[in-house]
């Protein structure tokens, strides 16, 4: 399997890009130290001559210079390069935790529904249907404050970590159903197979059947789904920030950069380009990796 993956050059290339992104996220403080700037200082406000009276970068291309590699943010005048670098951290962290949670819940519910069958399966099936019918984006925007109010009263501080936790929670709430439905289907077919029958006849406990017999056969779809889920969650988080319910200042965040970018694009298109291109590369790399993982696991599949 590993050999098959290694032969797939796209897979290797996209894996390198993905690892690069992860390294950048981990090493963000080091990069920032080497580069000599941080994502929080308001360079444009502290140094005259960088922003004009309207708050836009004076230098062409969004203020790109040897000093500011990717330019400076309009109005506040922060450094775009470090914002992007630190932004990967935010996006990846939220997406990663959500992916793990979503996958875990999806696995548990999918297996329970598929394995137990009958009434349990029917009820879970209905719940999955309902969750999938929810207009999730709208719902998340409307109930972000509600979820936060469960933890803090409206006149108290909303800590940054809480916003991240809330984002993870709501994204998980609407994310698990798809995977659960898929796994339920898989389990349903596996259940009828001879080796499960055999295990049952020999008196294996349900726990043994699930962990020793079912799960090993489910790893492939789970891994594929998880690799595809991560980029989808990164874009979902960015979309929520774009709609104004994402991470709060001053935590660097790609989605918020988009939001600002779409506001100022007529005067400073460069500020939109950097997060935009970075996100596209990131998502393409991850999707390609997902494809390659699938190919590596399942060589029968025709490309």
């Amino acid at each position, binding site marked *: 399997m590993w050999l098959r993956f290694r032969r797939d050059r796209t897979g290797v290339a996209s894996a390198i890009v993905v690892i690069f992104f992860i390294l950048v996220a981990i090493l963000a403080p080091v990069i920032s130290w080497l580069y000599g700037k941080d994502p929080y200082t308001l360079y444009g406000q502290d140094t005259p001559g960088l922003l004009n009276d309207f708050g836009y970068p004076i230098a062409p291309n969004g203020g790109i210079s040897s000093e500011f590699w990717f330019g400076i943010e309009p109005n506040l005048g922060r450094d775009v390069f470090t914002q992007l670098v630190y932004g990967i951290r935010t996006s990846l962290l939220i997406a990663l935790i959500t992916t793990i949670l979503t996958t875990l819940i999806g696995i548990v519910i999918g297996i329970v529904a598929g394995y137990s069958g009958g009434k349990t399966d029917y009820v879970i099936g209905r719940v999955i249907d309902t969750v999938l019918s929810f207009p999730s984006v709208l719902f998340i925007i409307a109930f972000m404050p509600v979820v936060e*109010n469960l933890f803090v009263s409206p006149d108290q501080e909303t800590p940054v970590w809480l916003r991240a936790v809330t984002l993870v929670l709501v994204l998980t709430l609407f994310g698990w159903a798809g995977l659960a439905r898929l796994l339920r289907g898989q389990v349903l077919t596996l259940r009828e197979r001879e080796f499960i029958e055999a295990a049952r006849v020999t008196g294996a406990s349900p726990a043994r059947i699930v962990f020793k017999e079912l799960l090993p056969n489910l790893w492939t779809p789970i891994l594929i789904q998880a690799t595809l889920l991560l980029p989808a969650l990164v874009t979902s988080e960015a979309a929520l920030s774009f*709609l104004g319910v994402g991470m709060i200042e001053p935590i660097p965040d790609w989605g918020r950069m988009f939001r600002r970018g779409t506001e100022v694009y007529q005067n400073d298109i460069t500020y939109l380009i950097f997060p935009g291109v970075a996100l596209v590369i990131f998502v393409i790399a991850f999707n390609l990796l997902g494809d390659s993982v699938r190919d590596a696991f399942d060589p029968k599949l025709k490309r």
Partner: protein
Amino acid sequence: MFRFITRRTLGAVVTLLIIAACTFFLFFAVPADPARLACGKVCPPELLEQARHNLGLDQPLFVQFLTWVAGIFVGRDYEGLGNCAAPCLGFSFVNKAPVLDTILDRMPLTVSLTIGAAIVFLLFGVATGIVAALRQGKALDKIASVSSLIGASLQIYFVGTLALYFLVYHNHILRQPSYVPITENPLDWAMGLMLPWVVLAIIFTANYTRMTRSTMVEQLSEDYVRTARAKGMQNRSVVMRFALRGTLITIVTILGVDLGTLIGGAIITEQTFGLQGIGQLSIRAVWSSDLPMLMATVMVAAGAIVVFNIIVDVLYAVIDPRVRLS
């Protein structure tokens, strides 16, 4: 067939009721008092009580929900505010009008946006998918695969804004997106929505190309297709009569999901292009704490998803007689 549709419809009604209940009960955790909003700046306690009574907020939660559901069938009368004829989805205290009126007013835009985009991405996606499948491994296939890969990774707010910058703002190739009813001027209608259609199509086409290609490849290697070929049937007819028919099922499935989502309010698309459709309406309802409006837009969106799911199921049966209505 009739029994099948009835059963699916009943199931859908149950799903919608559950969604309605979830939404409704969650509202009361929202930190905003509808009566307080309806009452205004100077609001002595007696008046607040009165407003609460008029809006039916002094009833137990469960009764309020039943009243809301009943309103859909028999209408409701809001004392001192106005009448809301059946089907009454609620009464907005921000607009001081039945929410359905406002929703129906915004619906044509969202429907136009969806249908127009669907036509573009469906034609493009299926056509490129078929071509790619028939020319497996050739240049055309590669181009189609690559562009679909990129297209699927693009975001509306990114591509849309870039398109606005280059096509509208800088070069004036297309018009600033706007909505003119088709009944008023069909040309302006199409021109005004052209940009959102194209951008939506760029993003959605990818999926259709991919799915069409892979299903088509599968279909072409099916026994019945090979048999037809062996019997000397023309390539063109084989593709059109057999392979395409099998592919349609996949297409219909994803189309159903996409249409359901889009009709329910293309929030990000409308936000990016500044169009006043259902999506914007719902966002506005969130920011202004207009709970009845929000409730109604959630229901319209959920309704669209559910209805299209039924349509997909029915179409399944029509396209492929092998799918038994079980």
